[in-house]
């Protein structure tokens, strides 16, 4: 199947600084893709190039098979939800939502029907006549979404739309986004610096670092099999043990040798904290924990659903374990950290 959005060798620089290194990306119809990365990684520039607000220095952008590289935003089948919303303050909610349809000369009755439908979708059906200045942050965010969605774009671009909201509202809006994507279909490209947001929304995540896409996969892929030390550290929490790999084995810097295929030479062994089991007596560890490491407990925090234990390995590296129960561990205790090598990821450092 031909992709709906295709970027071929697209790059952009500002002066001597490179915002986006030439990269290629294919996004299919109906996908919910998240572009994830820290601030300054080029993710917003990438989105703005797809939307037509930034012209790439090189490469080409195709939407639905047609080259739109030099087309301005008003001539593209994309619509954007902006980080600052960009609502029209002198218009009511309904006038904001209707604006694009008026420009497109959609007939009055059809326009009214689609505006009502969009307001219904974002659950603001009663607030059509309200001035946007009288809305709360979450409501403004939804109006911005409705204003873009009412255009029925082939591609909806979302630029950190939830960053101005507080945590509780953000979680509620994430749910709204999932519901709306399921309801209207269409392709969503969502830029965020919040990995939890990306994981909970998208079916595919492109992790960006310094202008490059460093990994592109499903949330599970990216979590379980991070392609680099950066991705491992950026997505969720991870124990990163340095060492040297050779012959299907890894010698960690504390001297312990554990099984581990993957790389030769300097490596990083990535172990997720929830994969770690702790035991004062090594013999008490379950059999599947074939990788083991000595450590000292530094702190134990009970968080309700889980217990967070911070440790220091004998080589001085900090480590973290998440478990369901606290056990009898106290700070200062000597323990063995155990995990299954199937749960670890060995990456060339």
């Amino acid at each position: 199947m031909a992709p709906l959005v295709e970027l071929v060798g697209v790059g952009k620089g500002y002066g001597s600084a490179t915002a986006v290194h030439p990269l290629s990306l294919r996004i299919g119809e109906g996908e919910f893709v998240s572009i994830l990365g820290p601030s300054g990684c080029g993710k917003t520039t990438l989105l703005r190039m797809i939307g037509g607000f930034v012209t790439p220095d090189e490469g080409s952008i195709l939407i639905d098979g047609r080259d739109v590289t030099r087309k301005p935003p008003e001539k593209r089948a994309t619509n954007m939800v902006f980080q600052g919303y960009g609502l029209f303050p002198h218009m009511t909610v309904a006038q904001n939502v209707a604006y694009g349809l008026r420009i497109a000369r959609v007939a009055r009755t059809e326009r009214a029907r689609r505006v009502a439908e969009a307001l219904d979708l974002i659950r603001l059906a009663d607030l059509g006549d309200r001035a946007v200045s009288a809305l709360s942050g979450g409501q403004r965010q939804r109006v911005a979404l409705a204003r873009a969605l009412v255009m029925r774009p082939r591609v909806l671009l979302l630029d950190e739309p939830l960053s101005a909201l507080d945590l509780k509202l953000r979680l509620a809006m994430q749910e709204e986004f999932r519901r709306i994507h399921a309801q209207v279909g269409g392709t969503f490209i969502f830029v965020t610096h919040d990995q939890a947001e990306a994981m909970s929304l998208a079916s595919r995540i492109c992790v960006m670092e310094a202008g490059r896409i460093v990994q592109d996969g499903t949330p599970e892929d990216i979590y379980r099999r991070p392609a680099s030390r950066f991705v491992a550290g950026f997505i969720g929490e991870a124990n990163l043990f340095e060492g040297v790999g050779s012959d299907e084995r890894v010698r960690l810097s504390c001297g312990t040798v554990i099984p581990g295929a993957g790389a030769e030479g300097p490596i990083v062994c990535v172990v997720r904290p929830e994969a770690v089991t702790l035991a004062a007596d090594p013999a008490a560890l379950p059999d599947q924990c074939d990788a083991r490491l000595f450590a000292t407990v530094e702190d134990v925090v009970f968080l309700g659903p889980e217990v967070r234990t911070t440790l220091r390995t004998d080589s001085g590296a900090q480590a973290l374990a998440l478990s369901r129960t606290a056990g009898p561990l106290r700070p200062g205790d000597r323990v063995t950290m155990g995990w299954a090598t199937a749960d670890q990821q060995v990456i060339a450092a």
Partner: protein
Amino acid sequence: MRQALRTASFQLLPGLAILAGLFLLPLSYFFVVSFWQVRTFRLRPDATLEQYARVFTEYGSTLAWTLAIATLIATVTAAIAFAYAHYCRFRAGRFGDGLIFLSLVTLFGGYLAKIYMWKTILGGTGALNSALMALGLTSGPIPALLFSPFAVIVTLTHYCLPLAILPVYGALRGLDDTAIEAARDLGASGPRIFRDLILAQARGGLTAAFALTLVITAADYVTPLMVGGPSSNMIGLFIQSQFGNRLNSPLGSAMAFVTIACCGLIVLTLSLTLRALTRPRT
């Protein structure tokens, strides 16, 4: 509630006192006087509309000419001010504020200095005529440059421009760049964005610029006197003479109030037109 209302009205007091003491009281004095009469060089309290009738019968054409020329000046000034402020806000980048400051610096030049400046430029032996003759474009000086309505328009536009730029720039600065990007994203062309977003939100500033220029020019009597010549007599000159050597302040007051009312109507017309033009629709 009652307590809050009392506090609020108490806090409004200084503002209201200034407004009443400096603006309403003197104006209402002249408003009252405009219904009086002058008999043998003395003011006689009365309640007659005679002065207002005289404004229209004796000074009707002067008033119309004044309002026409003032409207023209205000329109030209507001348009140039809008263009300049628009450039500073959207095109000049980080130099925008500096350019606005530069335009305000010209106010330091003073009113009379500007009038004499234009006399020097537009006069028979002035810079413009000399240049035209040196280039061989004209054989002699063009007398119509100075002592003509043209000279009045140029001088007053130049004088009012910085005052007009300020409110427009203030309004344009408040515009949200993201909203303009969003409008483009929704398919709006440049002219459409100008009307639906920029003009719609800056119309208050534009109306203020127009109104400011209109009232300054409609009441001005120095510029027509200095650069206007005999054909460009404006109502301000006559109002001034009624209060001065003619000793007829009731007629002068009536002329002033008719001018104020007409200016009010012109500004209201512009304001309503702009509102109708930029009214958001669903």
